[in-house]
């Protein structure tokens, strides 16, 4: 019997540009910044920039190729969100479901500030 791990990985070498940088440092920096905010679909806690999964490698390859072709990082993010939903991006959008998340820091500050201000006035 040949024993194979349950979820084996492909034996193919990684896709083009999956583990190699773009020659242009400015483009690479853009790609890297984007990859760090895209979530790996296989090992879900990590970004595609720091995941060993095959699919993450293929997504890095896709991001680098599109950046090299002159596409903007936000367009690539939108492309992936269209396929996988907001889940794939670590940067939540501001919309009907997430406005509270983005408003929360301000609300906390205002509420905390009010609490402190109330106390201080009384203490005068």
């Amino acid at each position, binding site marked *: 019997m040949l024993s*194979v*791990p*349950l*979820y*084996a*990985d*492909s*034996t*193919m070498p990684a*896709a*083009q540009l*999956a583990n190699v940088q773009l020659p242009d440092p400015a483009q690479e920096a853009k790609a890297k910044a984007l990859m760090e905010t895209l979530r790996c*679909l*296989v090992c*879900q806690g990590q970004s595609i920039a720091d995941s060993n999964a*095959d*699919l993450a490698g*293929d*997504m890095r*390859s*896709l991001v680098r190729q599109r950046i090299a072709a002159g596409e903007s990082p936000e367009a690539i993010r939108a492309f*992936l*969100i*269209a*396929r*996988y*939903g907001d*889940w*794939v991006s670590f940067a939540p959008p501001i919309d009907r479901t997430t406005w509270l998340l983005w408003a929360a820091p301000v609300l906390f500050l205002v509420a905390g500030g009010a*609490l402190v201000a109330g106390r201080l006035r009384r203490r005068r």
Partner: protein
Amino acid sequence: MKRQLTLWLPLAIFIGLATSFVLGLRKPDDRLVPSHMIGITVPGFALPAIGTDISGLSAADLATGKPHLVNFFASWCVPCAAEAPQLQALAAQGAPILGIALRDRPADMRAFIARYGNPYRKIGMDPDSRVQINFGGSGVPETFVVDGKGVIRYQKIGPIADSEVGDLLAALKTAS
């Protein structure tokens, strides 16, 4: 009185938190990320074949007026071998199955279909997952139902169990 109310606020917030925990626990453990491409036409693609006897696959093969099953699989994927009999059963019942082999070599693919049978009418080689990403797929195996206009209608994540063959046939029917 106002201070009294403020004092109950932490408890109120905690009850909100606890409710979210209860909801989170009661939901089945769902790590799967479903495709957002359901209801959307598959973006154009053309994938090479493994040889001359089985043809490759392109987007045009999907928009033929009849629905298809598109199965993402690979020779290195153990669950894919496990679902092979179910795919054979589907093919035997007339379901048109198109295969997309992920990150695979033609020789390995040949060995795979020689060993587990070939339920596929066409097989396209997707070496860097581009087409998988265009389907919104994230794992292997995965099976999609695409209608006659090339619109994705249904996604099955993971290997097809015996009991799920009927579901896929039904999904094919609704797509036509």
